[in-house]
């Protein structure tokens, strides 16, 4: 499985622009149906704009089931888990 260290591929976790960078990188895996391990170590808390432009866009385009199947989070803190859960709930409801 390919591994992506978030801290190395995007500059920040706050803007739409940084979210779009991540979207461009991750989209390839969705198009190729290839699982990817996303390493969250040391990555700062995300803003809703960052989330909407990256993970949110992928969920909208490919659906939540494919999102869960393709992206495997690694080295993630409990607070990162609860933050992503909160954004996912927001997107899904």
């Amino acid at each position: 499985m390919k591994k992506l260290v978030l801290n190395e591929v995007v500059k920040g976790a706050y803007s739409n622009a940084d979210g779009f960078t991540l979207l461009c990188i991750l989209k390839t895996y969705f198009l190729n149906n290839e699982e990817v391990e996303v390493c969250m170590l040391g990555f700062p808390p995300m803003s809703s704009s960052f989330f909407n432009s990256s993970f949110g866009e992928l969920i909208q385009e490919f659906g939540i089931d494919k999102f869960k199947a393709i992206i495997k989070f690694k080295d993630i803190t409990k607070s990162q888990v609860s933050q992503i859960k909160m954004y996912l709930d927001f997107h899904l409801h």
Partner: protein
Amino acid sequence: MEEIINLRETSDFSLIFERIRNKNLRADIDISEFKYFYPKDILMLVQYFVIQNYHQIDGSLLLSDVNGWYIQSINLIEFCNTNYKIPSHVKPTSRTAIPIKRVDTFTMNGYIRDAQNFFAKYCQGKDISALNICIAEIINNVSDHSRSEHDSFIFSQYYKLPKTIVFAISDLGVGIPDSVNGYMRSIGTGEFSDFEAVDWAMQKGQSVKSKVHNMGAGFDNIINQIRGIGNIRIFIGGVYCQIDKEGDKYIGVNPISNFIGTIIEITIDTTKLEPIDETILEGYTF
């Protein structure tokens, strides 16, 4: 300069906004009787002097011995003299405040990193991620909606008694009521009063869709981050909105008349912050 505007308390800033509205900026500001400045007060002064400089009008600030040291320690005058057209870094001198900054979505990463490092010394072992997220959400909001000519300004201060971080972000752009009603007109529904528009914008999932992917999560995120650890004060046009520690919202009349743009001031009680949870999960699938 013949006229002097006397500012003694926050509501007196209406005199400044009246000048900005009427493009009558030929007045000095006397703050010698103003006792205690919060970040939002500082930013209102900044806005006046930045616009004054932008229009190449000389002005001065009359200080007292008591508040003069503070105004000098945060480099307010230097900031206004160097930031009226493009962002420029001002050297820090205060030990408890981060220098005032002109920010946008391109420069916010740097400010957030500086703020995180600066305030960490007052909150050792505590999770201050709420600070990062709130700053980012507000600056993104300004960028998406306000169309402010002068970007936005941010000022952050630590207070030892009580142990709080207070930061404010201001802009002189289109406020929420105009933005919401523009959207309402575009979708062919009736317009809101300013109070209703602010209330609508605060609700989860409400967005004027200024960007395709906007979901209306920003304000809700800010409220969730601050719940239990602080409060939020928002000044928008004629509206004042306050959200307290429990998440209860109060919407009323802005005590500063003639107000232009938006100022959001957030107070974080550092004694209420949770300890940093360093538990790292090896793998997680949602």
